[in-house]
């Protein structure tokens, strides 16, 4: 197994663990962090492929992904704060306003 294959395999493992965390955990903040883990796994696969190239396009793209991920957290945390303030709970099972 060469190094690229190993790193893509690691990325697959981290993505699957993050997906499992999003599905099985109940805490909204923990689910958010598991989504961050999935983003990190995707970035790892992107860096693995981009590190083979010669120009800085891959690094620029990774930087843009970092900014978008930071923006995602900055908009997700206020939503979680609002939900926690209204429902007095971080349990996603308590968020039944949509009838779920």
């Amino acid at each position: 197994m060469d190094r690229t294959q190993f790193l893509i395999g690691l990325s697959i493992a981290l993505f699957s663990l993050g997906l499992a965390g999003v599905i099985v955990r109940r805490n909204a903040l923990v689910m958010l962090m598991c989504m961050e883990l999935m983003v990190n796994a995707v970035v790892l696969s992107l860096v693995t492929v981009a590190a083979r190239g010669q120009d800085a396009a891959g690094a620029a793209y990774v930087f843009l992904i970092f900014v978008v991920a930071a923006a995602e957290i900055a908009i997700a945390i206020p939503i979680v704060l609002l939900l926690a303030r209204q429902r007095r709970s971080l349990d996603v099972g308590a968020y039944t306003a949509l009838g779920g």
Partner: protein
Amino acid sequence: MSEAAFLYLFSAAAVAGALVMLVARHPMRVALGLIGTMLSLAGLYAVLGVHVIAVFQVLIYVGAVMVFMVFVIMLLDTRDPSFVARYSRLLLPGALAAAVLAALLGALLARRGPGVPWVPGAADFHLQPFSVAFLGRYWLHFELTSVLLVIVVVASIAVIKGRGGRDG
């Protein structure tokens, strides 16, 4: 070879951090597991020779995003039903779905055959060429990120102070 040893060490640490995230009860421990995974990934990027991305990973993810997350965990009271019972009723289907996804992607990866051999240091782009390319060729993308960040600031204030909020 020490480089390969570091590669496997950081990979094992990243997977261990992800496993801690799955089983830890307190959100703060989950956050620490995620921080460990992110630092291990930064170490992996450094081993790969992409030091710029390793620095960004530590500065932006660990330094900004996770510190924000840790503040929110300390702000919120975590003693609720999700603290007593960690897992939802989707525990078995969720674990099964993740295992099936990992198995399918792994089989796809193994079927690919021998890849192109790794060329060490083929693209060790450092800060200067990255900065020249980033502010030269990709200046429009850089400016668009600032627009995105302004939109996010406005949107988060709107979420907190909007009609759904109690007292802003």
